[in-house]
């Protein structure tokens, strides 16, 4: 693999950029691998990357029915934060946030991590108390957050209207090292590094069945034939239920559509991420100048990557009250993704009833921020059978009533 560097840019400039190679290979599948990962989203690719980097397992295939990064990873609004309430969540999300800080150097790929600060507005007394509690929990967990006053909010984000008639801003939970990153680059950077370690990324190849011998997995049937493996990692977000059914078990998951939209580009007006969870809306400004806007998820099971009009209306209405300047903007594009929701709004990183099959899902509306931490922990779980990062996130927690309740922090989409 050719390293990217300032020197490489200069060298290529001198020969009309004819020397850049492909970032990853597109091989035909082999008959057998040590590990097959289904789903080349951020979580699948990060899992493969850390299997190679941390555990020396490189005989790995990542199988993707569409194109890599074309699922939720390429559709999300890229908010990165770790200000969760429960200890298990804080551990995995903060691990991820920490890895984002050095990801560009680690992957030799610019993922444009921008720790510009994430602000979660408190717009009811109840929400204010909730965030005060989270700030205290974060202090104990070693996650740097603070509860800030409305005056400070206005200082950081002058475009905000503090005394919206219905939902005045009463303060905010502020995580200065939260921020955003370039979603595609995260997928592409991991893909390039995986390919470089000799792993096969097989795109436009759909997994249609899981093959077993007794209780043990032997491989997957795909549109490119049977591919054998010793261990199988299912990392398919919205399609987790379908893959679980192929493997022969059920999940506590429902798939719903979550959408986002962006405005026309404007001059810099907002240099942090703001989430208004009571009114269901959040925004940040991209480097291109577009306001990147998201809101609540649809509440019915849905596999259309679209979302309903009523949510656009709800989100727009909510945000215009708090950011009146938005009412002057034209919206350019809207899209949706299929997110995998669990009852406690926490992910599942787990062994399954089938020997050799592992599942990583349930990230719902908020898994982009977790990609490196999830890959780190899930790779450890797949390689060693146990990981301190994933231990609490097993499937059995539902039967045992041991929920990791994040419906306070993650009740809204982000």
């Amino acid at each position: 693999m050719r390293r990217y560097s300032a020197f490489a840019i200069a060298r290529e400039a001198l020969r009309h950029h004819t020397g850049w190679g492909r970032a990853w290979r597109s091989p035909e599948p082999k008959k057998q691998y040590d590990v097959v990962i289904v789903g080349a989203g951020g979580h699948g690719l990060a899992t493969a990357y850390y299997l190679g980097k941390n555990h020396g397992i490189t005989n790995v295939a990542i199988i993707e029915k569409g194109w890599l990064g074309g699922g939720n990873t390429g559709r999300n609004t890229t908010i990165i934060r770790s200000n969760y309430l429960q200890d298990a969540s804080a551990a995995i999300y903060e691990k991820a946030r920490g890895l984002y800080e050095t990801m560009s150097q680690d992957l030799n790929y610019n993922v444009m991590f921008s720790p510009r600060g994430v602000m979660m507005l408190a717009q009811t007394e109840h929400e204010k108390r909730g965030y005060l509690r989270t700030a205290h929990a974060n202090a104990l967990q070693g996650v740097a957050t603070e509860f800030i006053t409305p005056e400070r909010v206005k200082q950081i984000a002058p475009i905000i209207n503090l005394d919206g008639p219905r939902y005045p801003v009463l303060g905010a939970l502020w995580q200065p090292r939260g921020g955003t990153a370039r979603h595609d680059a995260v997928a592409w950077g991991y893909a390039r590094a995986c390919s470089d370690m000799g792993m096969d990324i097989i795109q436009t190849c759909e997994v249609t069945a899981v093959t077993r011998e007794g209780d043990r997995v032997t491989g997957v049937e795909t549109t490119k034939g049977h591919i054998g493996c010793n261990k199988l990692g299912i990392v398919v977000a919205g399609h987790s239920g379908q893959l679980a059914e192929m493997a022969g078990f059920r999940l506590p998951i429902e798939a719903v559509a979550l959408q986002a939209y962006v405005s026309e580009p404007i001059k810099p007006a907002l240099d942090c991420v703001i989430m208004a969870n009571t009114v269901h809306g959040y925004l940040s400004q991209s480097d291109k100048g577009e306001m990147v806007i998201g809101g609540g998820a649809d509440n019915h099971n849905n596999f259309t990557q679209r979302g309903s009009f009523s949510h656009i209306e709800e989100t727009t209405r909510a945000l215009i009250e708090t950011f009146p300047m938005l009412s002057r903007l034209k919206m350019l594009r809207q899209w949706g993704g299929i997110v995998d929701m669990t009852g406690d709004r926490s992910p599942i990183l787990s062994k399954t009833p089938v020997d050799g099959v592992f599942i990583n899902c349930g990230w719902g509306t908020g898994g982009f921020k977790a990609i490196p931490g999830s890959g780190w922990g899930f790779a450890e779980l797949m390689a060693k059978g146990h990981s301190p990062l994933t231990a609490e996130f097993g499937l059995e927690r539902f039967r045992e009533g041991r929920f990791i309740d994040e419906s306070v922090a993650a009740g809204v989409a982000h």
Partner: protein
Amino acid sequence: MLKFTCPYCGIEASETELHAGGEAHLKRYGPGSADEEFEGYLFLRKNPKGVHLERWRHAMGCGKWFLAARHTSTLEVFGTYPAQTHEPPAEILEKIRAKYPEALK
């Protein structure tokens, strides 16, 4: 926009008037049942990419719960029916099977 006809008041309601309630025809398990049964009832869901039998409440109308058969990736609605039933009426089943013979298996 997603629309359903409420089987009680007969009004054609759009999704903003309704509240989605998830999978229909769940068998309830209570005290004394096995952990697996209780887990299945409370948490495990079919979540099909296909025809889904589901609960909806006419929240901004008559307030009642009803059931519906809907395809989760085309959003076709095959019909709605009262909540006090254990399976969809024959005519809805026929409509579904005519188009999706593999559905609801």
